């Protein structure tokens, strides 16, 4: 036999719970309305169209295992990181084109990001190493390390072989150095993480010296 006072207490608590639930729902709706009212979705600034500039690309050729310097006109953003991504995108577009001398599927979208960081100096301690997330737009005058983040699909579809993988790596390093002379070192990530090799051969765990990748025109790297 349940005492009467417990029945009243249970009924009171049940009614109070329902009322509080309704109150919370109304408060949530009001907050949502306030957020929508405060959000201004109208465009505040016109999109900028970068002016076309001359970009120097070091284009690989499987025929004679060489890197050839080519000049292309393409819109280049002001931001150095975006600029690096744009020139590498053009380079990989050339490789993805039909009848390319160095055929590699993927195209320009295979470069997800290019991070530009102060290059670690020899003998620098671990605490002196640059951290990811440093502002890319900050003009850097000293030597820089470019971290190129490639897509997993690019690495998976890249032809396998020492020559073809080495040419891809060196052409990327050389192109970066030709357009951003401050870039002296290059590292590679695939989907944001370190990967042992590009497609089973070329080592992606090391830091590449960008200047070493720029050979005399038409010579083998």
């Amino acid at each position, binding site marked *: 036999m349940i005492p009467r006072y417990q029945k009243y207490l249970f009924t009171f608590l049940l009614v109070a719970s329902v009322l509080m639930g309704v109150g919370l729902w109304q408060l949530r709706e009001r907050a949502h309305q306030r957020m929508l009212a405060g959000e201004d979705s109208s465009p505040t600034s016109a999109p900028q169209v970068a002016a076309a500039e001359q970009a120097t690309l070091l284009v690989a050729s499987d025929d004679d295992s060489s890197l050839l310097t080519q000049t292309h006109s393409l819109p280049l953003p002001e931001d150095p990181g975006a600029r690096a991504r744009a020139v590498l995108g053009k380079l990989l577009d050339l490789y993805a084109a039909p009848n390319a001398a160095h055929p590699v599927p993927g195209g320009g979208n295979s470069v997800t990001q290019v991070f530009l960081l102060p290059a670690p100096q020899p003998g620098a301690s671990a605490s002196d190493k640059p951290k990811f997330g440093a502002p890319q737009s900050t003009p850097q005058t000293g030597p820089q390390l470019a971290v190129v983040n490639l897509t997993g699909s690019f690495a998976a579809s890249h032809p396998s072989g*020492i*020559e073809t993988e080495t040419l891809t790596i060196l052409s990327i390093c050389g192109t970066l150095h030709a357009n951003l002379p401050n870039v002296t070192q290059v590292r590679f990530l695939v989907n944001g993480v370190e990967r042992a090799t590009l497609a089973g051969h070329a080592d992606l765990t090391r830091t590449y010296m960008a200047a070493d990748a720029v050979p005399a025109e038409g010579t083998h790297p």
Partner: protein
Amino acid sequence: MRWTNWVLTALVAGGLAGVQSVAQQPSAAPQPRFVVVLDAAHGGDDTGGRLGSQYEKNFTLALSVRLRSLLAARGIQVVTTRESDATVEPNRRAEIANHAQAQACLILHASESGSGLHLYTSSLTPAQPTRFVAWKTAQAAWVTRSLALAGVLNSNLLHSGISVTLGRTTLPGLDSMTCPEVAVEIAPERGSSHKNSGLDSKDYQSRVVSALASALVEWRTEATQP
């Protein structure tokens, strides 16, 4: 006291016999040891690239076995990093090569890209040999000898009518080997009309293996010269 005389006599006789056996050894200097390491790239889970109907790991293993037989027939001691379809880590391959103290290390690869043979040496800057070397840059003290070995391979391959591309690269394990080393990548023979041989061409494979063996014999002659 008689037993002590017997012991003394036996010791003196044994000593004389030892001296005699030393004296009877030939006076000529022993042949210098010449060892070649053949590293068939990939293996096991690491299949390497796809070469038509087969994987690169099988092609390199078959080539390694073939080259080993040819070198053994020429009296060259051969150490291989793998004899079956087994996974061998890059550092383990370098350990095997370094333990062998070889005079030449060939890392065998194959690819459908490019043409002819690609000879790659380490991209490390040459350095003077030191007593203690860093594992990841151990090859630096051997780069000069590796370039010389690549030159000998190049001349022998060209003599056999095989086109060659020379280059520098970085492969996992390559920079840790302490021997004159060259990564040999075999690609299909393209170019002139009468030279279009795929990787499965027995004639092409024979020419490549023979040229590599001849080059190593020549390298042995250079290495053993005083």
